[in-house]
């Protein structure tokens, strides 16, 4: 089959690779109909994962049709159109039973060369390096899906492929952000980042009853999109004093909930770091901490390289803020989100700004990485 493979830092290629096969009783094989680019792929694309190997297949967000099911699969059969959650999860460990699928204890593949580690969860995911216990991704003609009864969800007929593919990762991540922030009726919510996840977070906040939702970004087309599709108020940080604007629009209190959904920041060179030079955009996390109302909640979504310097810890403690984080979504919200998609409450197809054949995968990732041509997400058809 053909798949989009990582070749070297900054280089992808569509290659012929062996077909996947059932490896466990609870596996299914899915013939992919659509797959989407994701922010979590960008550090991989840049070659910033030490265990990534040439030939590893990318893609954490995909939708397709079941073509083969293992004997332990109960909920799916050949022909089912399913969206597959980005997190691989067993459904039976303590974390899964709490609904915390992205923390699943049993999501890593058993590799003789790997030292089992109870606390890691980053590799229990599609499109992550096999050598780290990850699984081949969805930018391919076929994908093996472990624990299919837990990870795969039948798509209602009323939801088309391009809308439904975002139920794998983008939509549950955005919903999770609003949930972690405990957004409630009448809240003012500020979101840094008007990408796909930021836009769905804004929509989730509206659906949970927020009185005002403000989205901060510098890309005009993304801000317009958030305004049109998520009922959010756009703030272009190049043209306005964001902190002052947020105070104004929240009666001087500051937003009740601040969500940082800016994705993965570009790597800084050592020279820049030691020289005190920072990325060309404001530090969204610091700005969110300073903007949030006393006793409010700051939610940080994925996208960091592990360490952030100059974190305003004093503001966090003095103002009794709650800081919450998530790298990947859980699976429990996927059926509810598919229902909302079917009812038209949650529309995501506009996020697929570039719809390309898989053969143009490398070009799609270049557009996505560079945010060129108004690209929010590239969606591929094998």
């Amino acid at each position, binding site marked *: 089959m053909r798949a989009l493979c990582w070749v070297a830092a900054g280089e992808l290629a569509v290659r*012929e690779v062996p077909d*996947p*096969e059932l490896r466990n009783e609870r596996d299914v094989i899915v013939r992919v109909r659509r797959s989407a680019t994701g922010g979590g792929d960008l550090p991989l694309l840049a070659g910033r994962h030490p265990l990534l190997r040439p030939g590893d297949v990318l893609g954490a967000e995909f939708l397709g049709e079941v073509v083969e099911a293992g004997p*332990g699969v109960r909920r799916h059969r050949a022909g089912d159109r399913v969206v597959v959650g980005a997190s691989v999860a067993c459904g*039976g460990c*303590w974390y899964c039973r709490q609904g915390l699928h992205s923390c699943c204890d*049993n999501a890593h593949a*058993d590799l003789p060369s790997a030292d*089992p580690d109870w606390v890691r969860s980053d590799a229990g995911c599609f499109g992550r390096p096999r050598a780290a216990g990850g699984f*081949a991704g969805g930018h391919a003609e076929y994908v093996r899906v472990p624990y299919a009864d837990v990870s795969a969800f039948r798509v209602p007929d009323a939801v088309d492929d391009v809308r439904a593919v975002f139920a794998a990762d983008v939509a549950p991540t955005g919903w999770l952000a609003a949930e972690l922030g405990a957004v409630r009726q009448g809240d003012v919510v500020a979101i840094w980042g008007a990408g796909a996840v930021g836009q769905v977070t804004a929509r989730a906040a509206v659906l949970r009853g927020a009185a005002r939702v403000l989205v901060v970004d510098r890309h005009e087309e993304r801000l317009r999109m958030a305004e049109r599709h998520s009922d959010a108020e756009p703030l272009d940080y190049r043209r306005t004093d964001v902190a002052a604007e947020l105070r104004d629009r929240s009666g001087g209190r500051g937003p009740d909930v601040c969500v940082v959904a800016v994705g993965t920041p570009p790597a800084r060179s050592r020279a820049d770091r030691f020289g005190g030079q920072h990325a060309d955009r404001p530090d969204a996390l610091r700005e969110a901490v300073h903007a949030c109302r006393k006793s409010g909640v700051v939610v940080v979504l994925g996208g960091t390289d592990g360490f952030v310097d100059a974190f305003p810890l004093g503001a966090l403690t003095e103002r009794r803020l709650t800081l919450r984080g998530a790298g990947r979504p859980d699976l429990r919200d996927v059926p509810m989100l598919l229902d909302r998609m079917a009812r038209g409450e949650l529309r995501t197809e506009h996020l697929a700004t570039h719809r390309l054949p898989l053969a143009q995968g490398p070009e799609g990732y270049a557009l996505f990485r560079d945010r060129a041509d108004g690209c929010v997400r590239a969606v591929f058809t094998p």
Partner: protein
Amino acid sequence: MVPMGRLARAGPALGGAALAGAARLLRVPRRGARPGADGDAAAPARWEVVTVDRPAEQVLPEGRWPEPLRRLDGAVEVRVRPAPGDRGTELAARPLAGVTPPTGLAAHLVGDDPGLLVRRTLRQIKQRAEAGEVLRADRSALDRPEVHG
């Protein structure tokens, strides 16, 4: 000392070549192995522990060690206790004294850390109890004839 017949059952987990190393791992007295918890070479190895979200009677049916652990009978000691907060069972194991670093392929797999084999075994027990199976990796392209595009 563990009889070779029992050791041979470790084959499916480690592969045949690793088995020979694993046998040495279990039989040869400790000499310069990784020190215990306090950096003292004579100290017992550190316990490896995992919480299995199932009651003890499921983790150790009829009080017997489950299969992957049974292969290490005589080579490890095991401790079991209920996990607080209704979180199942804490299962701990550590190599018995007299363990030395393995050689050959087994050394490649577990390095000089005999605890790695114990950790892998505990992890497999946890996966079997909670997920019903041990999750296998995708087959590597290196395992199959390469197809060029």
